[in-house]
């Protein structure tokens, strides 16, 4: 069957491939059901594993007795923490700043001594079928001594709060995110605060003294889940020679390998991780959960073992993002110039340290040039699932608070909220509160595009309707990345790269290779290598793949180009310096008779010196930060408190949009996750710390029926730090929505919503407390 792409339209910036919209290379497999995801592995002789999880939020494990389970027909093995080597609590650096505390990582995979949240694994079983494994779970007898749970950060920080980790110390820098334990000779009591640090710039008192208008507010947000549709699954074989093979879907096969090696106490080289397609991650598939469990069950039985989570297990046993308590104070002169900002961010890490409070603190004031600022941050453990990264980790909640205060300041100053941002907006040379100075960024361009967008000036009439706007900053990431590519004799290129493809990155990186070689995008065939076949590549995360792996593909293409030029020169018996590649044709610079198309030369390689393989391994600097602004119209039903999104427009600076359709897709998807976070989503815990809404029905993510079309406008201010000007695009679109919607609800009702979610009940409560405006906008 053939697939036809849209007619090729030349991209911006004079590019032939970059900026066009070819059909993604992996598209056919994904629309036909052929693509293999985490749970699609079936191996001969495979057993099915299930994990027994704690019913209590906080309890001591008194005993585990698996005899009844082991006697159940069809059950092959049961494991508990006794099978896990217990690594030290000393922080390990897995490279590129991926710090891990091996003990916490291990204990989150299988509890030791205590359970710290409902859903915490205490044992695992494998059997001939999933049903038998499930039956066996109920036959494992666990005796618990139930302890009082700590259910939010405010309670956890009280002097008399129950302590989750008896030996946890409070770090005073942001660099010990995974948390650490006190030295053996230190007998001080453990704390639930795993880190507490401050970023400061200028003179805060002076700044507030210069302000004519000051707004100070407190905000609370709840834990929300990434909500990827594919539950976690891992399949493992532990061979007799000690070699372990793991098939799983994740945001990084190397991260899965290295974390599993830490927990199992084996060298990383003993483990091969084969990446399968990933059914959504959003940051939530950067941590191991099932991989060591499947491996140990395989070791015990000598057979392949697959362990897959149910949806309830995903909610209760994998990372949501932090709930937070925030306090923000900002001041401005009567002319509208920001003079000072002060914020306190308290983020709930769940059962083990490591909330994203540091990136939240770094990003919350990023859009602004503020001479005097102070952000104080706390990372606090509570009896809830350990948080994992979630799209621009830490930034959305912090931006919700900061951008709500900015809206209020603009209102008090009687200024248009975009004009207020334009007056104070960060640009090249602006120093961030955390120290770095911005290179060329596109915030002001994004704001101007927002103001010029038809949505911003469209009439919006009717009671209880309002329009809100908010912006956001995310710094974007990079990291090591590898690519190898071989020229096939038919003139196409087979590309092997290391970044699992969550949202079209195969296409985005292959297009950058094609651009260098003058080939159509379809002539580069990308695939994603396992840990034994491709060089180390850091996670698909931090909006880094189009940037770093795109760069690796650019460099690997340059390597091919250099070798092919040398080959053409050898065939023609001329100097390589006299040969050029233009539009897919190798040319002698002065003799027009000497020319090969890429395909012609590719066909000659095997008889003129052998195949050509290009390679690159990079760790690029030059990341360009991302800015976005969103505009939203809402209508609030005063009878029910329900907020309907009437119209939504997302704008952002993508640097260069390599494949604009997938950049738009990121913007739309991020905006809608933000809409869910703003209006319905939350982890709802009962008084004992048990999640009450651990299903898609009760957690209630946005459906197609809840939403309008999501308009997008891509602003392109090329990143000077990348060969094609690429910035990251995936995360920034989830930063502005909550504040934009809160600001819109204010315009619709006259009520400032200071808690997320702004669910119907919360809005009704707020309307009841305040005298709402009856005439809207």
């Amino acid at each position, binding site marked *: 069957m053939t697939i036809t792409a849209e007619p090729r339209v030349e991209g911006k910036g004079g590019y032939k491939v970059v900026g066009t919209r070819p059909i993604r290379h992996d598209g056919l497999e994904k629309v036909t059901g052929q693509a293999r995801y985490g749970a699609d592995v079936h191996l001969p002789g495979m057993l099915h594993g299930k994990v027994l999880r704690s019913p209590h939020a906080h309890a001591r494990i008194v005993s585990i007795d698996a005899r009844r389970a082991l006697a159940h027909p069809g059950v092959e093995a049961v494991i508990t923490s006794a099978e896990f080597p217990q690594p030290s609590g000393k922080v390990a650096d897995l490279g590129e700043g991926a710090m891990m505390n091996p003990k916490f990582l291990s204990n989150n995979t299988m509890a030791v001594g205590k359970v710290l949240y409902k859903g915490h694994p205490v044992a695992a079983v494998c059997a001939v079928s999933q049903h038998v494994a499930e039956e066996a779970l109920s036959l494992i007898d666990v005796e618990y001594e139930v302890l009082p749970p700590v259910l939010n950060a405010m309670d956890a920080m009280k002097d008399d709060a129950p302590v989750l980790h008896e030996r946890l110390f409070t770090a005073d820098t942001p660099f010990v995110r995974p948390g650490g334990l006190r030295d053996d000779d230190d007998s001080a009591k453990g704390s639930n605060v795993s880190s507490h640090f401050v970023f400061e710039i200028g003179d805060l008192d002076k700044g507030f003294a210069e302000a004519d208008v000051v707004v100070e507010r407190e905000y609370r947000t709840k834990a929300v889940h990434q909500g990827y549709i594919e539950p976690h699954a891992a399949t493992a074989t532990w061979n007799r020679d000690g070699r372990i093979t793991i098939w799983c879907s994740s945001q990084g096969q190397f991260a899965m390998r290295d974390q599993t090696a830490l927990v199992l106490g084996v060298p990383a080289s003993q483990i091969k991780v084969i990446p399968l397609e990933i*059914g959504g991650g959003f940051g939530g598939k950067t941590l191991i959960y099932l991989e060591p469990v499947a491996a140990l069950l395989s070791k015990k039985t000598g057979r392949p073992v697959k362990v897959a989570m149910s949806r309830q297990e995903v909610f209760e046993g994998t990372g949501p993002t932090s709930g937070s308590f925030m306090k923000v104070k900002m001041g401005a002169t009567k002319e509208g110039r920001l003079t000072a900002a002060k914020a306190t961010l308290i983020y709930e890490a769940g059962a083990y340290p490591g909330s994203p409070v540091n990136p939240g603190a770094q990003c919350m004031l990023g859009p602004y040039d503020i001479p005097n600022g102070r952000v104080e941050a706390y990372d606090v453990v509570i009896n809830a699932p350990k948080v994992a990264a979630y799209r621009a980790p830490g930034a959305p909640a912090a931006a919700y608070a900061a951008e709500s205060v900015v809206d209020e300041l603009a209102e008090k100053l009687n200024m248009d909220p975009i004009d207020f941002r334009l007056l104070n907006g960060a640009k090249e040379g602006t120093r961030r509160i955390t120290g770095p100075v911005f290179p060329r960024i596109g915030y002001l361009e994004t704001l101007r595009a927002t103001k010029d967008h038809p949505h911003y000036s469209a009439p919006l009439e009717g009671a209880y309707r309002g329009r809100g706007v908010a912006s956001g900053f995310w710094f974007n990431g990079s990291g090591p990345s590898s690519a190898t590519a071989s020229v096939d004799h038919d003139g196409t290129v087979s590309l092997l790269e290391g970044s699992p493809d969550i949202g079209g990155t195969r296409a985005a990186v292959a297009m950058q290779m094609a651009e260098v070689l003058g080939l159509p995008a379809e002539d580069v065939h990308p695939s994603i290598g396992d840990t034994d076949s491709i060089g180390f590549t850091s996670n698909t995360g931090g909006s880094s793949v189009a940037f770093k792996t795109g760069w690796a593909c650019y460099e690997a293409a340059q390597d091919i180009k250099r070798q092919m030029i040398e080959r053409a020169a050898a065939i023609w018996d001329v100097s390589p310096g006299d040969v050029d590649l233009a539009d897919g044709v190798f040319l002698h610079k002065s003799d027009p008779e000497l020319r090969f198309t890429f395909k012609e030369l590719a066909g000659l390689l095997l008889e003129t010196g052998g195949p050509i393989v290009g390679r690159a391994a990079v760790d690029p600097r030059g990341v360009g930060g991302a800015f976005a602004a969103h505009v939203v119209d809402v209508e609030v039903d005063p009878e029910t408190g329900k907020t309907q999104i009437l119209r939504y427009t997302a704008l952002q600076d993508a640097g260069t949009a390599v494949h604009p359709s997938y950049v738009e897709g990121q913007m739309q998807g991020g905006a809608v996750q933000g809409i869910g976070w703003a209006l319905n989503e939350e982890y709802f815990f009962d008084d004992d710390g048990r999640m009450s809404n651990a299903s*898609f029905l009760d957690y209630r993510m946005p459906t197609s029926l809840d939403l309008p079309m999501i308009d997008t406008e891509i602003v392109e201010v090329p990143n000077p730090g990348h060969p094609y000007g690429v910035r990251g695009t995936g995360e920034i679109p989830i930063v502005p929505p909550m504040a934009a919607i809160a600001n819109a609800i204010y315009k619709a009702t006259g009520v400032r919503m200071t808690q997320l979610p702004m669910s119907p009940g919360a809005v009704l409560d707020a309307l009841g407390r305040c005298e709402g405006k009856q005439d809207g906008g």
Partner: protein
Amino acid sequence: MSKKTHVTTNINGSDVEFLCESRQSLLEVLRDVLNMTGTKEGCNDGNCGACSVIVEGRLIDSCLMLAVETEGKSVTTIEGVASTDGLHPIQQAFLEHAALQCGICTPGFIVAAKALLEREPEVDEGRVRHWLAGNLCRCTGYDKIVRAVLDAGQRMKGG
């Protein structure tokens, strides 16, 4: 372990026989017994639509139907949507509109859209949004999916 039942059903136009336990869902049998893993599990409780299949012309969540109930019935899964001649217009529209990102929900959406458009190719945005409300996508925000389905409807009407 319980005794297995012999079931004969028609899947994607071919008669298929399998043995299953009475407690096994159609989803589980498709995936684990018949190795047809194109139908995905997202929640196993009827709330995400990733396992959408068509049974006797009706769109259902295969996680909510027991496999033994399909005796003598006809079932269409994602593996039966494309023909040997090429992709179904809905599949083609999904590719051209970039209506998928991670792709895990895509088979369910395509099957659900097929169930709609084969009866009702003349649909508007509201109808599509209402029909697809049982299928969750966390990546796209639905915009490009809705556009792809509307476009596919036009193509099917024309074809």
